[in-house]
């Protein structure tokens, strides 16, 4: 029963990795990384049951809570770059 869903998740991880490798923009790769994160959460919760050790769900919980910080960091990075370019341009003019 768990094998079907685990296999589906693994195949999807491979597809997401394909998107991460193909690009073409960096944001596609960030999207793929984020998808990879949610897929990992699902995979880990299912495997915890497959192993018969449901007390290991902490790991999936950790990813569910903090995986999106990476994407927020990307947004902040782009925002800083955009704002510093804007000030550079206004200083140059």
């Amino acid at each position, binding site marked *: 029963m768990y094998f079907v869903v685990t296999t589906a998740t693994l195949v999807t991880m491979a597809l997401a990795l394909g998107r991460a490798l193909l690009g073409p923009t960096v944001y596609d790769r960030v*999207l793929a990384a984020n998808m990879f994160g949610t897929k990992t959460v699902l995979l880990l919760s299912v495997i915890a049951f497959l192993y018969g050790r449901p007390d290991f769900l902490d790991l999936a919980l950790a990813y569910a809570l903090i995986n999106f910080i990476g994407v927020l960091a990307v947004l902040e990075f782009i925002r800083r770059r955009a704002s510093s370019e804007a000030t550079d341009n206004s200083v140059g003019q």
Partner: protein
Amino acid sequence: MALFLDIASWALLSIGGVFVFIGGVGALRMPNLYTRIHAASLTDTMGAVLIIAGVILQAGASLAAIKLAAILLFLLLTSPTASNALASAALLAGLRPDGAVTSLEEPQE
């Protein structure tokens, strides 16, 4: 009763697996970034709900079920937020939704 629960959770897990897979195919095959975000995040949330509901049925009334519910809740909060932040970042960097890239495109490798 146990058999019924098993069948229900099997069905939920399988449908969830199908949703997750569709999301993956969508993210790979859609023509531009914003459609890909749409495909990935929409089926992501659906797949997560179904799969975790299926596993909760297996867990029964235990601490594991509460943890799974928490995982589902946090996933439903963070995953759309991440999609939103990603779309904002792309828009801020000048990637237009119609697919016309105006600037800051990644250079050819």
